[in-house]
């Protein structure tokens, strides 16, 4: 019996030991779990099946600001911004065991809202009844902030891109509109060029032709295909226009020249002009061909008219001249002093008329281009002395001192003697006409570098500054000249200039109104 009791006691002791061991094991397990949960860098919360907080770990205490003591026994939804959402989450997890990474907002003790990711797992006892929930809570506010920032950045960038796209589209639209406008402008320009009455050739900065209008093709008897991309010189060669072929010699900005007729009746005036855009000065060259045939014909007709008219006018004048001359010389009976005086005045008037007609005839011939006739070697020094001799009488009548400072050497020039004498006489007589009594007129002849230099200087009325540019023009007389001397055709200087220039000379003047004038000319010496 005792043995049995002993055995029984042993059995009880054994069971007690076992129980103690189990209790120890359980305690150890709990302690282990606590330590582990404390250490785990993840916020963990232990919740009862009714949603009451049973335990929180250290990490969650730190995250939420609440101590275990403060939250234990509180309902979980208290910790979150949207209570309903956490309730749903718990319900859902009880059906599905685990729910991972749900985004919620945790409210800390001090009221701060933290975006967190919540995962829920259900706890079950050995009979598989719900015994509670485990929640892991991760602070994702930093990621969230980054994400939001990134999103914002993307949004901004997208907006920028959108704006850029719109801007580009606008630019494209504008460009298209500009292109259409340019096309329109180009067409307009082309119409103008094609219908222009003048011939136009345009050379680019590379000196090659890039545009020619139909009129120029017609004038030059060439086609665009023949001359496109050719230089002015090459086109000069093709068309035989020497002014174009020798274009390199032209230094002037604007060059204007009458071309040798290309065909019977066609006379062209060519203008070569450098042109440029406002910001690209003078890169292109424009050649304008203007048809002046009609002007020339009119000019010629006018000239012929003057010639015939002048010729017809001379006949009665010569009759008057001869008749007066006979009467004045007393060949038709003696005259009273009064009669003689009247006849002499009439004669002077007639002479004036003759001079005017002679001038008109000379102008007509100048304009016909057949004025200078058969130039030959002439000693201008000798010619000048012959011219001055009779003028001394005129100077004496006008009480003007005429001085001549001439060289002794011959100065041989090639000249139409009669015309050169006319030009020189015009200049010297002008000096005397437009100088007051007691004034002086000086004639000088020198030479330099194979050029003779002539001048006639007076102390006369001078040429008003504002009229100086017109003084060599046809029929032009200075205001003060008209006041002083009603006689005068306004043709003398025009004729003189044409004569000197036809002899390859230069003519110019210096003048101060009220002080006097000096006219100069040069002529090339041949010996």
């Amino acid at each position, binding site marked *: 019996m005792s043995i049995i009791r002993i055995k029984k006691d042993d059995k009880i002791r054994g069971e007690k030991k076992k129980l103690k061991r189990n209790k120890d094991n359980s305690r150890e397990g709990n302690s282990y779990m606590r330590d582990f949960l404390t250490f785990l860098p993840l916020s963990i919360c232990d919740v009862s099946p009714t949603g009451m907080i049973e335990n929180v770990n250290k990490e969650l205490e730190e995250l939420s600001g609440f101590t275990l003591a403060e939250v234990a026994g509180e309902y979980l939804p208290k910790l979150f911004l949207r209570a309903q959402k956490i309730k749903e989450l718990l319900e859902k997890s009880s059906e599905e065991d685990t729910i991972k990474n749900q985004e919620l907002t945790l409210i800390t003790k001090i009221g701060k809202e933290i975006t967190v990711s919540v995962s829920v797992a259900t706890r079950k006892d050995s009979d598989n009844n719900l015994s509670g929930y485990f929640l892991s809570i991760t602070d994702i506010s930093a990621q969230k902030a980054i994400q939001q920032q990134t999103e914002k950045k993307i949004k901004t960038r997208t907006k920028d891109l959108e704006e850029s796209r719109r801007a580009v589209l606008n630019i494209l639209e504008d460009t298209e509109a500009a292109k259409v406008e340019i096309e329109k402008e180009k067409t307009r320009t082309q119409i103008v060029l094609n219908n222009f009455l003048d011939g136009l050739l345009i050379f680019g900065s590379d000196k090659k032709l890039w545009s020619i209008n139909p009129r120029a093709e017609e004038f030059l008897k060439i086609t665009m295909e023949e001359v496109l991309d050719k230089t002015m010189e090459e086109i000069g060669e093709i068309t035989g226009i020497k002014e174009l072929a020798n274009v390199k010699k032209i230094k002037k900005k604007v060059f204007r020249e009458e071309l040798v007729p290309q065909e019977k009746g066609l006379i062209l005036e060519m203008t070569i002009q450098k042109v440029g855009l406002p910001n690209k000065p003078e890169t292109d060259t424009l050649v304008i061909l203007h048809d002046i045939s009609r002007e020339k014909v009119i000019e010629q007709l006018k000239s012929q008219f003057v010639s015939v008219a002048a010729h017809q006018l001379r006949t009665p004048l*010569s009759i008057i001249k*001869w008749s007066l001359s006979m009467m004045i010389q007393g*060949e038709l009976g003696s005259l009273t002093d009064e009669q003689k005086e009247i006849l002499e005045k009439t004669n002077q008037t007639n002479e004036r008329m003759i001079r005017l007609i002679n001038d008109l005839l000379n102008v007509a011939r100048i304009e016909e281009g057949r004025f200078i006739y058969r130039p030959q070697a002439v000693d201008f020094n000798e010619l000048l002395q012959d011219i001055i001799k009779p003028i001394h009488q005129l100077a004496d009548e006008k009480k003007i001192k005429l001085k001549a400072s001439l060289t002794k050497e011959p100065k041989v020039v090639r000249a139409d003697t009669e015309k050169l004498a006319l030009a020189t006489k015009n200049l010297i007589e002008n000096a005397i006409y437009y100088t007051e009594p007691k004034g002086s007129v000086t004639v000088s002849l020198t030479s330099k570098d194979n050029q003779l230099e002539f001048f006639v200087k007076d102390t006369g009325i001078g040429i008003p500054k504002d009229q100086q540019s017109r003084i060599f023009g046809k029929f032009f007389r200075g205001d003060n000249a008209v006041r002083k001397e009603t006689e005068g055709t306004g043709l003398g200087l025009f004729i003189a200039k044409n004569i000197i220039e036809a002899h390859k000379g230069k003519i110019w003047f210096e003048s101060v109104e009220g002080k006097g004038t000096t006219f100069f000319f040069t002529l090339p010496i041949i010996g």
Partner: protein
Amino acid sequence: MAKKILIIEDEEILLNLLKSKLSEIGYEVFTALDGVAGLEAIKEIVPDLILLDLIMPRMGGFELLEKRQEDESIKGIPIIIISNSGQPVEIEKARKLGVSDWLIKTEFDPKEVIEKVVAQIGDSS
């Protein structure tokens, strides 16, 4: 015997003026009012000098000069042109047709014409 001068000129006033002037100093003066009459007179009279206008009715001065060149009997007679024209080309043409001198009427008076005549053929006798 006085030297004979033929004046061919359509302007009667000038013609008469010249005639009286030249007659005065002793020349024997004949006149014609156009080229046709002038040419006939030249052949008939055979003058020592001809004063010839250029622009005249029926036959002008140049035509007359050409006809004179064709006729050996009158070819050598000296001629002075008296004209209102005086373009160098005309003067050149006239010289080729044997003209000795050229006077533009408005540039000379009768006295100077006489001087030219005397210079050409000497005085009247």
